[in-house]
């Protein structure tokens, strides 16, 4: 493994959150790119429309209308975006966004995604940013196009634009009933000229109460290709004459190669062996043959290993290496010392969250092809332009000589911000002189991808004589600051996100640290409620002003029938609730759990969750996201945990790392609130944060045992 395979930002969770940093301007060479788009449309991109213009799609920077969309002569419209489809629904949502503002049916839109040669850079697909950033960007582009087309029609007819309206891609003069279609207009040179203008930031967008394409359930446009197997994921791409590559991995983290004999593998028929410093890989006409060659190579390797902390000692290790001083400054209000001193009851507890893995069903995969000094990769990554930049840097070629394409891929959940397989495939392909595909094995994904950070969270809370919360001291070591602030009214607070030395490579995950912070906060709120002798719902509401959180919390409690269910708690059946906010959306969950005392197991019977993220753009997809978050959240709450020792992952497979399966699925009630007076926020992450604490609180309600770790099962086993 070479040093530059892992970028520094992947090692730091704070920095691996979507950072929309400006990229160096990409200049187009004198070459002319001829590109096939949509339904046989031929677009010629010349120097006039520079890739530099295309690259500036992020951070509200302006791109031209032409960089965003193209009206095809058959009446369809090709829309271009740098966002990646990995299952969370941007393909449908961005299609709807364009259709809405263009006043056309969604099936008239052809969305081209995540190909650096064709699309603007819309930033990384992460952080729930597609809904608040890219949807508006696409809508602005589409609205501008509609206005320009309307203006052209008005000029042709010599009337004022206000006399015209647009429906189904047809512009109509309300008085004369004269009509012209986008497709007809697209034949004129005026459109090409008009589309060279930048998309203004202040173009008027369709108000929510007039939405037709947005706000309704639109299925993923390429669904049929998914159910027939016609869609090609990154690991499905086949190029003529290609080979399958395998990479030699160290036996443990930090191990370095001291000696190796490649001669035997080199002598194998049809096998290409590549060495570049610590990087050793091989390629062969089948992955089976490549794996055989790799085995031959691995047998000859000697390694120098280094000490590495184990998962058994991880929490004391993180605490010992915590950096609580220096740049890690707490946020404070009032005086925490005074608050704790004034309190009549003080609770102090520590919560622990294990490292977990995203385990997308499709492990990292890429195929690389060199032609005339230019590199094309098909790769599973959340940001094609990052792959382009990283590869250009690695191979010391200008970025315009690298094209990165991300076919709709098989899951990510924050775990595919890096494109290691693309670099590995490109190295092998360069040496082999043929296209090479590198498909990571599940064990490789479990070991050499990055992890959601482990955390130690220290909480101190003080209650006054009336049972009101007056002091809140909260320190998260290592996981990060997402959703670390408390939404509750507390006069004296001290809140700190402290970094540490993570022994595992860590990075983003669905909602990142918000899950850890919400787990600790919402569990600890429950502990404080119990200490105050209060109902967990009443205790929260007594300290909560945020109207959006109040609304979802009260709604979840109502749908779940909290007061009645709470009274029915037994030693074997518990109920719990939790709420929270992150990424401008709010969530609350009530759960019922059953305790199997013999097996020492927690069985989640029911989850009733209420979620609100502003105006809902695609209800069916939002339901899928909330359901997915709930079940994914169960895994991390109950069972998922990386075990490691001596720099080796001990459970790098589905036998030892237990993700939720059909049998784990509880009764799920999802209640969405469509709040139309604020902008839409993303919905693919925040619904995950209420699950773990609601379960822990339900277990406490039944058993009186407080579990302060994620995952919970092993802790419960020890205590019962």
């Amino acid at each position: 493994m070479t040093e530059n395979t892992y970028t520094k930002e992947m090692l730091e969770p704070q920095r691996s959150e979507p950072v929309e940093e400006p990229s160096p301007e990409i200049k187009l060479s004198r070459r002319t790119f001829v590109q096939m788009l949509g339904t046989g449309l031929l677009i010629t991109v010349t120097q006039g429309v520079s890739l530099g213009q295309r690259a500036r799609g992020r951070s509200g920077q302006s791109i031209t209308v032409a960089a965003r969309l193209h009206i095809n002569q058959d009446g369809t419209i090709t829309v271009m975006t740098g966002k990646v489809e990995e299952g969370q629904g941007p393909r449908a949502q961005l299609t709807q966004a364009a259709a809405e503002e263009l006043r056309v049916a969604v099936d008239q839109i052809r969305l081209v995604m995540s190909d650096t040669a064709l699309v603007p850079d819309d930033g990384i697909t992460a952080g729930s940013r597609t809904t608040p950033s890219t949807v508006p960007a696409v809508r602005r582009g589409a609205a501008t196009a509609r206005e320009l087309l309307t203006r052209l029609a008005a000029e042709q007819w010599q009337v004022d634009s206000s006399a015209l309206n647009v429906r189904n891609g047809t512009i109509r003069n309300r008085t004369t009933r004269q009509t012209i279609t986008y497709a007809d207009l697209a034949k004129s040179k005026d459109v090409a000229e008009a589309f060279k203008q930048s998309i203004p930031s202040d173009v008027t967008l369709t108000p929510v109460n007039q939405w037709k394409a947005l706000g309704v359930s639109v299925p993923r446009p390429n669904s049929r290709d998914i159910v027939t197997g016609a869609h090609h994921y990154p690991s499905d791409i086949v190029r003529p004459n290609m080979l399958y590559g395998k990479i030699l991995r160290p036996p443990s983290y930090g191990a370095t190669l001291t000696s190796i004999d490649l001669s035997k593998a080199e002598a194998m028929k049809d096998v290409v062996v590549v060495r570049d410093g610590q990087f050793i890989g091989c390629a062969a006409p089948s992955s089976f043959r490549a794996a055989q060659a790799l085995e031959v190579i691995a047998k000859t390797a000697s390694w120098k290993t280094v000490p590495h902390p184990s998962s058994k000692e991880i929490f004391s290790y993180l605490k010992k290496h915590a950096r609580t001083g220096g740049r890690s400054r707490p946020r404070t209000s009032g005086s925490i010392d005074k608050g704790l001193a004034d309190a009549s009851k003080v609770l102090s507890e520590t919560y622990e969250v294990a490292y977990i893995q995203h385990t997308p069903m499709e492990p990292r995969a890429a195929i690389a092809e060199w032609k005339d000094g230019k590199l094309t990769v098909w790769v599973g990554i959340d940001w094609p332009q990052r792959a382009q930049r990283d590869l250009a840097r690695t191979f010391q070629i200008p970025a315009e000589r690298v094209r990165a394409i991300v076919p709709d891929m098989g899951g990510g959940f924050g775990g595919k911000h890096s494109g290691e397989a693309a670099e590995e495939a490109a190295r092998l392909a360069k040496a082999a002189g043929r296209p090479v595909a590198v498909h990571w094995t599940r064990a490789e994904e479990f070991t050499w991808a990055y992890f959601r950070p482990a955390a130690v969270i220290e909480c101190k809370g003080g209650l006054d004589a009336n049972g009101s919360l007056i002091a809140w001291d909260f320190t998260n070591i290592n996981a990060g600051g997402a959703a670390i602030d408390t939404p509750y009214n507390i006069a004296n607070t001290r809140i700190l996100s402290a970094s540490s030395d993570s022994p595992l490579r860590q990075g983003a995950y669905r909602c990142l640290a918000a899950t850890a912070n919400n787990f600790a906060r919402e569990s600890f709120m429950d502990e404080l409620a119990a200490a105050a002798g209060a109902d967990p719902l009443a205790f929260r509401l007594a300290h909560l002003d945020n109207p959006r959180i109040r609304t979802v919390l009260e709604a979840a409690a109502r749908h779940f029938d909290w007061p009645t269910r709470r009274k029915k708690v037994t030693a074997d059946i518990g109920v719990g609730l939790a709420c929270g906010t992150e990424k401008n959306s709010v969530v609350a969950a009530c759960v019922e759990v059953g305790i199997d005392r013999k097996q020492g197991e927690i069985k989640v019977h029911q989850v009733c969750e209420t979620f609100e993220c502003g105006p809902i753009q695609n209800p069916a997809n939002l339901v899928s996201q909330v359901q997915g978050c709930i079940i994914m959240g169960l895994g991390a709450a109950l069972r998922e945990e990386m075990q490691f020792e001596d720099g080796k992952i001990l459970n790098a497979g589905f036998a030892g790392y237990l993700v939720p399966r059909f049998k784990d699925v509880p009764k799920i009630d999802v209640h969405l609130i469509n709040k139309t007076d604020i902008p839409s926020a993303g919905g693919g992450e925040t619904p995950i944060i209420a699950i773990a604490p609601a379960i822990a609180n339900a277990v406490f309600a039944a058993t009186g045992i407080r579990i302060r770790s994620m995952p919970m099962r092993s802790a419960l086993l020890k205590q019962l």
Partner: protein
Amino acid sequence: MDATITLNVNGKERTIITDPERPLLDVLREDLHLTGAKYGCGEGRCGTCTVLMDGRKTLSCVTPVARADKKTITTIEGLADGDSLHPVQQAFLDEGAIQCGYCTPGMILSAVALLKNNPQPTDEQITEWMNGNICRCNGYTKILNAIRRAAAQIAEVKIP
């Protein structure tokens, strides 16, 4: 030593000369370019590689190709009847039971095998049968709905 393997894949006779130890999954994907069956774990623990072998649910990643010799294989590419989707495929579309979709071919073929043996499964039977198929987007709820819907449809129109 390479062996000659004869397969009937999606109605076509295919002859492959290859190492008999290679997984059926690799042969389907790399030699026949039928990439609908996916690699998910290589250990038969996730179901993304599911195909039908003589009509039975088979984990192709742990099936040496030699074991498939002279057998009939159905992959997701061969499930539809021309443009007409199999009821299970249609049910997945109708329920929107797709997120990233990488597990979908395996889910569909598992469900097809289930409904062939047991056209009217209970929820418990569906859950038991499908438990080997992992969906990491965790779209289980809608997948269950899709299988229920397909079962109802098959009962209605008596499609085999």
